[in-house]
């Protein structure tokens, strides 16, 4: 019959696959691929030997170490606090819950420099918290703890916002089933809740870690920026650029890029794993 001649096509929201894919690719190329490629080319230009000399210089190594250590501290803190926060937001009803939920996004929205300034003001020797901590022998400002604090502040929503939806989707019957089978609250958490949120939690922590590695604005105010002590890698790259040492800046930037890519890959793998685990749950 002639009716069959015209194939029926499913209606799509966006017109034309070619056009929409083309636009996304162009956009991605302009704002992501070209800058990254330029960075890589700049690095390649100097040759492996010079690259290695720059990134293995004592000051650069110290900067990488400080950045990684502070980011690790911040991530450990966020890993615990983020889950707790997500748990409170999902499992309890209390007045002001919606406000608290909205506040969770403040670190995303707040200019990082503002965050850095206010943290410095709070924790400096004459600030509200600093006035108490300093005499107790716990200086925060101009130490690695200050850097970690600023990193934790800007990256905690990553953990909360990845764990929260998974907790929300969790069937309460799972925990009830565990309880009727004799599991104590701790066992319920470790053996039923934890495995369910683990992939999302790991993905959130990875993203938070990546974000911490690249954090700049919030840190420079609180860190003091002493070479070999509180100088982070992003700042060192910035200093090299100021000194018109383009090779030095791009070599350090390339290492940070390398870290970021590895973390991104990890995060994506974890999310893939999470999606597959969820599919299995159905």
């Amino acid at each position, binding site marked *: 019959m002639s009716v069959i001649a015209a194939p029926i096509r499913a209606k799509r929201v966006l017109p034309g696959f070619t056009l929409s894919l083309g636009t996304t690719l162009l956009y991605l190329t302009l704002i992501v691929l070209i800058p990254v490629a330029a960075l890589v080319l700049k690095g390649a230009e100097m040759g492996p030997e010079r690259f290695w000399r720059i990134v293995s210089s004592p000051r650069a190594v110290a900067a990488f170490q400080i950045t990684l250590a502070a980011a690790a501290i911040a991530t450990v803190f966020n890993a615990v606090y983020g889950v707790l926060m997500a748990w409170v937001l999902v499992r309890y009803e209390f007045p002001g819950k919606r406000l608290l939920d909205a506040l969770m996004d403040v670190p995303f929205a707040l200019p990082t420099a503002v965050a850095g300034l206010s943290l410095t003001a709070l924790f400096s020797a004459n600030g509200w918290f600093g006035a108490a901590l300093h005499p107790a022998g716990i200086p925060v400002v101009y130490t690695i703890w200050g850097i970690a604090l600023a990193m934790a502040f800007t990256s905690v929503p990553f953990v909360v916002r990845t764990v929260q939806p998974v907790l929300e989707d969790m069937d309460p*019957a799972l925990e009830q*089933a565990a*309880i009727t*089978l004799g599991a*104590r609250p701790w066992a319920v958490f470790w053996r039923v809740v934890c495995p*369910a949120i683990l992939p999302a939690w790991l993905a959130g922590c990875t993203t938070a870690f990546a974000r911490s590695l690249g954090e700049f604005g919030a840190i420079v105010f609180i860190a003091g920026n002493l070479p070999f002590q509180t100088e982070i890698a992003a700042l060192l790259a910035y200093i090299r650029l100021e000194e018109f040492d383009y090779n030095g800046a791009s070599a350090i930037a390339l290492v940070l890029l390398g870290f970021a890519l590895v973390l991104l890959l990890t995060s994506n793998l974890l999310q893939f794993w999470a999606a597959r685990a969820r599919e299995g749950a159905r």
Partner: protein
Amino acid sequence: MAISISGLRKRFGQTDVLRGLELEITKGELVALLGPSGSGKTTLLKIIAGLEWPDTGRLEVDGENWLELAAQDRRIGFVFQHYALFPHMSVRDNLAFGLTVRPRAQRPGKAVIAAKVQELLHFLQITHLADRFPGQLSGGQRQRVALGRALAIEPKLLLLDEPFGALDAAIRRDLRRWLRGVHEATGSTTIFVTHDQEEAFELADRVVVMGEGRIEQIGHADTIHDHPASPFVARFMGATVELPVTLQAGRPEAAGLDLQALARRALPDGPATLFVRPEDIRPVPDSAAPWRIESRMSNGAHLRLVLRHATGAEAEADIPRRAVQAEALAPGASVRLRVEAGAIFPAERQGTAATTVSQPILKLESSK
């Protein structure tokens, strides 16, 4: 385990979910809690399990006060409506969960647990599924695993919440028979919640009919079917046709109805309501009668007639299509209705007694 429940009340916010329940269940019994959604049956089950707590009331099991006992210590097997299998554990690990979470002192050895799981897999006839994950199982298979996981802790009491609700009809029937077998094999007291009458009556020793937070009737299938204790049970059991009648010396009467088949009732004279199933109504052609056939539909085996009284009242009748008189029962024909069986309640008791007292609006409606 013998269960004794009394004065059980529970409110969720403004809603009374349970309004004072009294229930005794003897050891080894298989009891169904039957009722429409919102009748409180699942809440009752969860209170027995320790997953919900009543506001007031007593719950005693073998003389022990269970309201002082945490769910973990009650040693019940609970099967959830949507199975609630742990998605990240294999079937084997799901079955073993209840044994592996025991405190170290009471936990059986690894080999003992493995043997127990193997035995369960065999008993449930799912040995081939042992290493699969819940996501890879069909509904019926998940149901078996859920039941197996509950049985692993050798519960003294087995509670099932709409155990077959999410399965299709053929699997339901199989699993129903199978559950009956499991109950007989384990000898545990079993309570299950359902909104499906057929399921309740086919499976249970005793059926507890619940409606709006109350127990409306407790009994065996035949009793509940033939002698509903309240208008609620009558309606729920399919007596959807409600006819106004007048009681005189225990006999119901109404123009256009032939009620000779009904037994005499020990009820006071006055207005009453007769609850009848459509299949218990036989329309008989009678040109002088006040009922007319308004429409006629066939589903192949049966004819469904919609009947209209001169005063506007409506009734429905189901008759076998091949019955002789079917030919004469065309739309427009005048008929008298012969009622083969039905339940009669005095008109004041259209709602339940308590509702009528506490809510005057209903009383006004019912006295119309």
